């Protein structure tokens, strides 16, 4: 019994210490971002490995999610004779919710885990120490560009996801099930509000991008410098990102759309 209580105390202290390290790490990283202005090449290279390589999975998933929305939406709407509104249903679902959330979950799995593993491995093989001994700050040189790239890539990928999803809904609804194409687009244009829907969705994806960038780079940087430590960091990145994204999504949704 005392052992369990003792363990609880140790765990609490450990997680508090982690929290402190996390905050300190974020401050260091953010202050390192300024120096990237003079070296945009570093960020561009990371945008490629973080963003471009996530593009395939985002496009494919977006297409399928959009197609499923098209099917499900049609089946529900057709009972009310409202299948003309399919475009609105698909677009709102994607732009408000599924675009940012699903893209974030995929992004955490594809790019976040890769970031954590890469940084953790650089730590385990003394590359970060080696850099520091060459008087190159690894937070500025390695972490900051990756953080910034992930932060920038996430909203763009969420936008791609939503756009492809809308096309997927179009394929299923209009091409296969015979909904009027003109109605699909015009209802969507009429009912989807730029501020209320699109901007709020973009804000969500920006927040998620920040959270994933922070979690992934921190887990890699804070990993135990061993094979096991890197594996743990990778897993933790994906699990924590998923939980944080879903939790943040609820909070943001409540703030944005709650009072209606």
């Amino acid at each position: 019994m005392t052992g369990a209580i003792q363990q609880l105390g140790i765990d609490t202290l450990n997680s508090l210490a982690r929290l402190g390290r996390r905050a300190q790490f974020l401050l260091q990283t953010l202050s390192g971002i300024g120096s990237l202005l003079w070296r945009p090449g570093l960020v561009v290279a990371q945008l490629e490995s973080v963003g471009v390589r996530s593009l395939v999975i985002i496009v494919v998933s977006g297409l399928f999610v959009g197609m499923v929305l098209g099917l499900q939406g049609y089946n529900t709407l057709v009972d009310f004779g409202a299948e003309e509104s399919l475009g609105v249903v698909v677009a709102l679902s994607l732009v408000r919710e599924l675009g940012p959330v699903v893209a974030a979950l995929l992004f955490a799995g594809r790019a976040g885990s890769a970031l954590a593993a890469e940084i953790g491995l650089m730590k385990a093989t003394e590359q970060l120490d080696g850099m520091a001994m060459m008087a190159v700050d690894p937070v500025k040189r390695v972490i900051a560009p990756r953080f910034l790239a992930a932060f920038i890539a996430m909203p763009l990928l969420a936008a791609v996801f939503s756009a492809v999803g809308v096309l997927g809904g179009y394929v299923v609804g209009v091409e296969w099930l015979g909904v009027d194409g003109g109605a699909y687009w015009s209802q969507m244009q009429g009912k989807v509000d730029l501020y209320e829907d699109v901007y709020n969705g973009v804000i969500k994806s920006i927040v998620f991008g920040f959270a994933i960038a922070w979690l992934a780079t921190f887990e890699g940087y804070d990993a135990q410098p061993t094979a096991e430590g890197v594996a743990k960091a990778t897993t933790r990145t994906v699990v924590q990102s998923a939980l944080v994204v879903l939790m943040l999504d609820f909070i943001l949704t409540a703030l944005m759309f709650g009072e209606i």
Partner: protein
Amino acid sequence: MTSTDDNLIEIRELRFAHGPRVIFDGIDLSVPRGKVTAIMGPSGTGKTTLLRLIGGQIAPDAGAIKVDGLDVTGLDNKGLYALRRRIGMLFQGGALLTDLNVYENVAFPLREHTDLNESLIRALVLIKLQSVGLRGAQMLMPSELSGGMARRVALARAIALDPMMVMYDEPFAGQDPISMGVLVKLIRELNDALGLTSIIVSHDVAEALAIADYVYMISNGRVVQGGPANELADSSSEWVRQFMGGLSDGPVPFHYPARDYAEELLER
């Protein structure tokens, strides 16, 4: 070896522990300017740890570490980085950047710290690679190098910025007799021609005694013996004999600290 000015590094009363395990228990050590100093000791005594302490990567529990008159433990980040620019370090594992090829690895410190144009960088990189015999390997990635080659690339990188001091962690490990001979000569020549100060960590008694001006032997958290290499080489010191003869019994313990062998075997 007494006046501060003659010593690039002065370590006094250094204490350091990893949790309960005491690594250094009050070490005094001086590294004279312009000389090659070898630090020797059995595996796990803390030789790598000592280099990390000198480079300011970890902080001691007590004691003073002065490099070129600067107290490493008291330096802020900026001061530490300024000092490190003048120090080259060869890591035991090489610590090459895995996403850059050999050429870019050696060019890395030049690109980070100088505004030299590409043709100058190229010339410098090729000179350094030529001196470690790996100019032909410039396009290989670190994953395509053997351990010994990686260490030589790391050496080329360590001297890229012409530092005032180079710390070599096991430069000879994994080298065949030919590259070993070349490396010994190279380290000596670099030291004398460029007026560097060199610290070499090694297990290799014969090589270390051949190349070094001064030798420190560390064991059990203390300096067991230290002095000019030529004196130690023909001293009748017990540890020299133990190391030369590869004996497990002697002043230097072979075993990691443990409790009584018989007691543990007979337990239960």
